[in-house]
């Protein structure tokens, strides 16, 4: 009696675990960042891709650092992130085949409406960051080695601030994703650097608003690349390359440009811009 | 698969059981042979329960030798025991019996007939689907008896089988014991009830401080006790 039940249970588990294997037939895994997922971009463009090619895209959204590591380990077929120097190193190390620029969005400096650092309305990121440090305004840092974190560190550097040395109690590293950083900033009325896409689809804003935007140094370039089948032979080369090709095709680029939240375009395709 | 009928006689030869430095059994020698039931009597702590467990093969003596039909270390295939407080398995009445029959190696297709036979023997026909743990004390005792008989034992040990029962339940259990004995099964029972010993047993073994003081046919034991301890015990004066 007991043995029969065990057999049934094992059968059920075998069935359950076998079904994803079957479903994997025409699907690829894409390691990407939270911003592309949380902003709803994938929800908009992937159904279009599937309708055209029949390929199921499974998106694992992680911080850029973790996403790149996922690609390096061979646990994804395609990498779609925003940290150009890390992406180039990924390709140079032989883990990626070739990096293609896809689109950009921009970072925005978010802060409380009361704006204790007095940076509201500016377009100069350097000035704003200098003011934050001088006024010791509470600032939430991702602190998770993500693309956004890297961009933030670059901005401190550009403002000639050695944040590792100059940080005080006002500088708070939370080591979490964009959403968690925004939630924390909202709860403590702090300043935070966010990508515009995540900010626009973020709902728990509290007293926060965009204070500084539009600086060239705050542009955020996305690149896509196939994980190198020479390193990881199981990579679905044809299906993965199909996604890469579609993203940089005229059709894919238009799909990206068409995605709007509240009437506002979030991502700006630039696959054809050399050196992006 | 039945073991050959090699359980009897059960011979305990100079058996000691020590717990720490305390001797529960002290170089005790006794033989349980074929025939009428044997009653083990003696004051509390005299070693009755321990002797039953030794003879059943549940525990090994610290020193001395136990043989069943002349052999040592015989698995308890044709021995059965009714504990003083038998534990009902968390199953129905038939569930308990089926379990015992399966444990005794009775073939599946012969079990149901045996269940009916055993329930009739102990007077529990009609109780089949009752949860065993919700039976009364006397009913539990009789179900435990049926369970013990499931393996068709050559010898049945009883450890104060009626200690906590009222007179009516006691009588019904004694009736079953008589029926069991009449089937040729050797019964060895520990009891505090001298009346019960007289009613059931053909032979009395008096234990005192871990030793067998006197072994005698029932009539002679009560009419002409040979030892001082036996005389005092029958008179109710031997307390420890």
């Amino acid at each position, binding site marked *: 009696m007991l043995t029969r039940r065990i057999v049934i249970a094992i059968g*059920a588990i075998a069935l359950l675990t076998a079904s994803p294997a079957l479903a994997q037939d025409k699907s690829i895994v894409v390691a990407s960042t939270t911003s592309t997922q949380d902003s709803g971009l994938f929800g908009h463009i992937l159904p279009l891709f599937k309708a055209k090619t029949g390929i199921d895209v499974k998106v694992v959204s992680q911080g850029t650092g973790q996403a790149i590591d996922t690609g390096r380990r061979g646990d994804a077929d395609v990498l779609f992130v925003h940290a150009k120097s890390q992406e180039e190193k990924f390709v140079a190390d032989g883990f990626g085949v070739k990096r293609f620029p896809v689109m950009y969005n921009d970072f925005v400096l978010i802060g409380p409406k009361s704006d204790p650092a007095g940076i509201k309305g500016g377009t100069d990121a350097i000035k704003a960051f200098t003011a934050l440090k001088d006024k010791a305004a509470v600032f939430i840092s991702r602190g998770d080695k993500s693309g956004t974190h890297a961009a933030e560190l670059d901005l401190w550097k550009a403002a000639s601030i050695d944040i590792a040395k100059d940080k005080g109690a006002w500088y708070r590293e939370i080591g979490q994703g964009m959403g968690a950083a925004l939630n924390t900033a909202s709860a403590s009325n702090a300043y935070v650097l966010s990508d515009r896409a995540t900010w626009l689809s973020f709902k728990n804003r509290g007293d926060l608003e965009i204070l500084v935007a539009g600086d060239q140094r705050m542009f955020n370039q996305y690149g896509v690349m196939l994980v190198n089948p020479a390193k990881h032979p199981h990579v679905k080369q044809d299906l993965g390359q199909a996604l890469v090709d579609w993203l940089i095709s005229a059709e894919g680029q238009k799909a990206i440009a068409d995605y709007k939240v509240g009437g506002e375009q979030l991502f700006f395709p630039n696959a054809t811009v050399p050196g992006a | 698969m039945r073991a050959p009928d090699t359980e009897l006689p059960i011979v305990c030869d100079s058996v000691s059981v020590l717990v720490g430095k305390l001797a529960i059994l002290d170089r005790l020698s006794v033989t349980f042979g074929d025939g009428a039931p044997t009653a083990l009597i003696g004051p509390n702590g005299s070693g009755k329960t321990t002797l039953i467990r030794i003879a059943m093969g549940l525990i090994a003596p610290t020193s001395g030798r136990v043989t069943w039909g002349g052999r040592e270390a015989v698995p308890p295939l044709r021995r059965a025991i009714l504990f003083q407080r038998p534990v009902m*398995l968390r199953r129905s009445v038939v569930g308990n019996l089926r379990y015992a029959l399966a444990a005794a190696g009775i073939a599946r297709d012969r079990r149901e007939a045996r269940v009916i036979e055993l329930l009739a023997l102990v007077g529990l026909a009609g109780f089949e689907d009752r949860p065993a743990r919700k039976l009364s004390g006397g009913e539990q005792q009789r179900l435990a008896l049926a369970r013990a008989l499931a393996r068709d034992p050559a010898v049945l040990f009883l450890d104060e089988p009626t200690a906590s029962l009222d007179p009516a339940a006691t009588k019904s259990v004694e009736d079953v014991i008589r029926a069991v004995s009449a089937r040729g099964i050797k019964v060895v029972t520990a009891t505090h009830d001298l009346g019960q010993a007289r009613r059931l047993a053909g032979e009395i073994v008096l234990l005192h401080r871990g030793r067998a003081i006197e072994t005698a046919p029932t009539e002679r034991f009560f009419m002409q006790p040979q030892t001082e301890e036996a005389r005092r015990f029958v008179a109710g004066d031997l307390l420890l």
Partner: protein
Amino acid sequence: MPDQASALQLVLSGDPALFAIVRLSLLVSLSAVVCAALIGLPFGALVALTRFPGRAGVIVVLNALMGLPPVVVGLAVYLLLSRSGPLGSWGLLFTPAAMIVAQTILITPIIAALSRQTIEDLWLEYRDELAAMNVGPAGRIATLVYDARFSLITTLLAGFGRAAAEVGAVIIVGGNIDGFTRTMTTAIALETSKGDLPLALGLGFVLLAIVVAVNAAAWGMKRVGEQYAG
């Protein structure tokens, strides 16, 4: 899931995405309970019934492992199943199977430790009878597990509760892939990171309702079973 919908609206409108998530959560956690029971119950019974040197240490470790952090389990399974890991060729990372593996590891100690206690208590009660009936070691374990089954249901529920509630392990090994490895807890984590706290909280209540329903069903089973088995 539509962005503006509340959890209640999703439930009332029978949102297919929500039901797929609920279904996957139940499938993963219940499968993990079954796997963990197949490993943990016999192991717990074995420890309950045997005496060996170092047994106290095994029990202490088993009890301590009940507090295994899900993130650590997730990470270990991730490294194991990653394409670059020892079992990478199985291709299980980012699949429901990987989530079942992680949750199984997470709750096996819970089931083993709690069942060890339950079975040991019953063993002290049964040992003489089973010895008298000449029941061998395997038979003893089977008997004790079977007869303790109604108490062990509570043990399995503790394991299920832990599995259904954890997010740390499944989000690492499952990847929270929409429509494939997204469970109730990873969906809650996602909605929280998107700042949609009301939806996240609403999903939390849906999860709570499911866990309550599973517990109620098990409790009813236990009641009815005990009526008949005593």
